[in-house]
């Protein structure tokens, strides 16, 4: 029988990320008894029965987070450790698995029990191949992707044991910065992902390039629809090749094989082709629509739900007007 530990962290202000409660739900679905451990700011007042708290653990940092996680896992004697695949956990838990001579699998999209065995489902080759696997090695650390299941209800623990952990560090946390443009890239709570492709910076029917208007149309839509903004690799790379660029786009916006794979209910692609390296970034977009001039482009081959063959400048101009009404 597995000894299951749900290991979560708090964010600034002692708030639990949603992904932490999703992990609790996934652990409960496996059955059996679970222990919840929390580290971070205000951890001893959170949902865990064991915690590591204190100023040193308030900020994300490998050395302190790994020390806290190691102490909690050792104390619990867990054979199976479930944690949310947040940036903070992804940074520290693989190292903790190495310290405990265990195993680690990240980006799990499902965890299930098959008889006595626990199986993990995850993607390989940038969301192009799906596989399920199990392991004999213990402790086995599984990082569960945010959005993989519905969050559980969890109340603060009746009794909390706070562990004392010593964790020297040579790193100081200096804060957070947003992209200089002031524009959000991927908004986790947005319902829609808008992706701009390289066609926005190509010559239009009048023979000229209209990057200023393209920028206005794209940003106008992102603001009025409150959508996430992504772009194709080719558009981002143009900045390094001396071609016309949309100045607010950076590598942070890049969606696809070498970019992010965000999760949104809907996605709208404009001026980009639905070739496989790009479409892997859309793997977790449920409802996909695209606007471009080529009816034979990759989107038409079973990758989008609707492909509108039209001029994105004209469509977006009109769409922005309608959304502003």
């Amino acid at each position, binding site marked *: 029988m597995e000894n299951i530990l749900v290991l979560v962290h708090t964010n600034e202000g002692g708030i639990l990320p949603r992904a932490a409660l999703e992990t609790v739900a996934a652990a409960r679905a496996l059955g059996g008894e679970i222990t919840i451990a929390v580290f971070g700011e205000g951890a001893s007042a959170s949902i865990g029965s064991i915690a590591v708290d204190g100023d040193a653990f308030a900020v994300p940092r490998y050395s302190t987070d790994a020390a806290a996680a190691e102490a909690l896992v050792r104390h619990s004697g867990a054979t199976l450790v479930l944690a949310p695949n947040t940036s903070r956990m992804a940074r520290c838990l*693989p190292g903790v698995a190495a310290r405990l001579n265990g195993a680690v699998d990240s980006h799990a999209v499902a965890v299930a029990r098959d008889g006595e065995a626990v199986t993990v489902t995850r993607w390989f080759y940038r969301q192009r191949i799906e596989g399920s696997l199990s392991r004999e090695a213990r402790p086995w650390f599984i990082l569960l992707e945010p959005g993989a299941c519905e969050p559980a209800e969890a109340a603060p623990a009746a009794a909390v044991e706070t562990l004392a952990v010593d964790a020297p560090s040579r*790193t100081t946390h200096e804060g957070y910065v947003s992209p200089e443009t002031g524009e959000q890239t991927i908004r986790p709570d947005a319902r829609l992902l808008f992706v701009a492709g390289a066609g926005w910076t190509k010559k239009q029917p009048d023979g000229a390039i209209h990057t200023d208007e393209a920028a206005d149309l794209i940003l106008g839509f992102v603001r009025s629809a409150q959508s996430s903004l992504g772009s194709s690799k080719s558009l981002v790379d143009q900045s*390094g090749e001396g071609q016309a660029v949309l100045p607010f786009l950076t*590598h942070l916006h890049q969606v696809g094989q070498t970019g992010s794979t965000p999760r949104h209910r809907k996605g*709208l692609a404009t001026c980009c082709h639905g070739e496989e390296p790009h479409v892997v970034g859309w793997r977790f977009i449920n409802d996909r629509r695209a*606007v471009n001039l080529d009816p034979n482009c990759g989107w038409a081959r079973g*990758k989008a739900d609707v492909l509108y063959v039209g001029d994105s400048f004209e469509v977006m101009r009109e769409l922005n007007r309608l959304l502003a009404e």
Partner: protein
Amino acid sequence: MSFDIIVCGGLAPDPLQSLEPAPGPALKNEMMLPAVFDPWAAHALYEAAHLAAQHPGNRLRVACLAPKAKLQQVMMIMAQKLPFELIPLDGASNGFSDAMPTAEALASAIQALPDLDRDRLLVFGGWESATRGAGVVMQIVGERLGITEQFLAVDELRIDNGALVIKERVEGGRHMVSRCAAPPAVLAWATGNLPEPPNHPQTGMANMRTMMPALQKAPPTATASGIAFREVALPKVQRETRIVKDLPAADIARELAAWVKE
């Protein structure tokens, strides 16, 4: 301040290739598929070379675990982009291989370097690979080397009075800024900010003079997997795409506006 920079990287199938799983698991015709240097590791390498060029006395090496024949093909291309020394490990490595033994092999190769300067050591790599996509190798390499200052999804590194000022990607499209007092440190890079360097044949020729002998001596490296695969398959979903042609832009916009507001 000078650094001893080691970039860990692997190979990945060319992103434009169609991939199909085969028993093993492996990729169908895996040895025939054209390979590239892993895109995330490549970003780390470009950033490493940029840093190395800024400070005299810096040293840049690349540790790579891959089948020797493929490694040679890919290094013929990478060698033309920037100067570096190669630490090759000849072994099977693909998306289905186990990250833990891969990391152990890389860490052992780094540890075995006779002239490793730990006080100046920066270990770079991609934040995950384009094959396994696990995002765990660099942390395990760091642990095995005893490095507790580690950074994941790095987009920027600045040297400020000997300290490392680092921007890491975190949730919500933000960067977290940290200051690490000094090396050693592990930096697993996201995309960074640098474009792919242009090819430079003279650099390639100079690199190959040291790389070819290193490749010939690449130690065979076995990586036992602790993974039991239950199933490996392509995603089955094929969408019925509705192609809307000959509709005026205003009508398309109306349909889209209703869809956005749904």
